């Protein structure tokens, strides 16, 4: 595993999916507020490319079947079957089991550059 310089911090638009490759493998990079998150561009369900998906708010309920929409786009939705994943943890919204998680990679920001640790 080594660190790869991917993009300048200021160039990464907030709440947009930035797709990039390391050694021909595709990844997604997302700036959520000021957190930088990276995961493999592959849904754990049927391997769809998550970069075609949408960043969306997490929709929950207040207990009375009324919908509550989160302020930030903290969920990525698979472009095929609509599975939702929490961008911060990679966990699916419906189950925390590892087999249903996005595969995250470590990130860091140094001197305004975003690095991702990958093989």
């Amino acid at each position, binding site marked *: 595993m080594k660190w790869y310089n991917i993009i300048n911090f200021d160039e990464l638009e907030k709440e947009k999916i930035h797709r990039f490759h390391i050694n021909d493998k595709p990844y997604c990079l997302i700036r959520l507020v000021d957190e930088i998150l990276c995961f493999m561009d592959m849904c754990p369900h*049927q*391997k769809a490319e998550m970069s*075609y998906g*949408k960043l969306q708010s997490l929709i929950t309920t207040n207990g009375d079947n009324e919908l509550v929409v989160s302020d930030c786009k903290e969920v990525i939705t698979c*472009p*095929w079957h*609509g599975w939702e994943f929490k961008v911060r943890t990679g966990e699916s919204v419906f189950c925390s089991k590892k087999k249903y998680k996005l595969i995250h990679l470590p990130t860091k920001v140094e001197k305004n550059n975003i690095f991702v640790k990958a093989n």
Partner: protein
Amino acid sequence: MENDVITKKTPIIDCDIHQTYTSHHELLKYLDEPYKTRVKESGFGYPGGLYYSVAGGVRKDSFPTDTEKRLPGSSYDLIKKQLLDKYNIKYALLNGGGMLGISLMTEQAFPSRLAKAYNDWLIENWLPLDKRFLGSMMVAAQDPEEAAKEIRRLGDNDRIPQVLLSSITSMPIGQKFFHPIFEAAHECNKIIAFHPGGNQSSGTAPVPTPVGFPQYYLEWHTLLPNAYMSQLTSVVVEGVFEKFPGLKVLLIESGISWLVGYMWRFDKNYKSLRKQTPWLKKLPSDYIKENVFFTTQPFEEPFKQSDLTAVYEMLGIESNLLFSSDYPHWDFDDPYLTTKGFSKELQEKILFKNACGLYQKEIM
């Protein structure tokens, strides 16, 4: 171990893909007046969807970007790239997009003309694009005599091996009113396929469930097998397979696992209640195993894959199950992942051997 698993060289027959026109204007040249002007001014007018899907209707990566055609399923190049070549598909059944609602229109003549126009459009615009394409013809079920004429008109076209009907009809499809359709299909060696379309409660369709209207798409989609259970029961009990013994019926997107309890219950009831339908000579499950085929998508996904294997062993329909992707719809299934966990023998049957038998095709 290498010989025990399928590879990406394994041939695949995809029994359900949805190609489409970009605009209803593409069909105008295949319509006569007054229908041509009607479609030009008002579109097709068949009933559309009732329920809103939060997952959308199509894969988000299926919108063409390099062509003037912007609707998913309208670009041959993209279908070729994302499906035909990617998965080593040897044959793909073109089932169109949306046209099934014609069978739920209140009129008879106009929907029959639309079906004919669609079929001519399919033959002229899609089948020549790729020798791997096979087509399903549309007919308007509410006019069985015209539907039968259309089946016979295309009877000799071996690129169109089946007739596609909505899984929803205004009354059970096995009833005598519809028999001209089965008769023509039987005579012309065409499969009768059912696919969800023209949503329940739209047009002349009955309400979506026996208890009325569910609120959400999640409920509607989960309950799609309801319609297939009703239609399959009707076809068997009304004696369609006794009257037309060689007829093959294909249920697309019906799901499969429900068949276990369904066939047990059906057979048990038959043993006690047979004398009301004495034209039946066999157990209902025997008719189903001999005459009825099923596609895989949307494949059931239990937490333990071995549960699915157990279900297939119970069903005894290994030769009746055919792969389908439903490209480019939102609940598309990948052929390799769909069959993962099954024996190589069963995978090959599902991916191509069973379809080769049903469609009488050989793969070199």
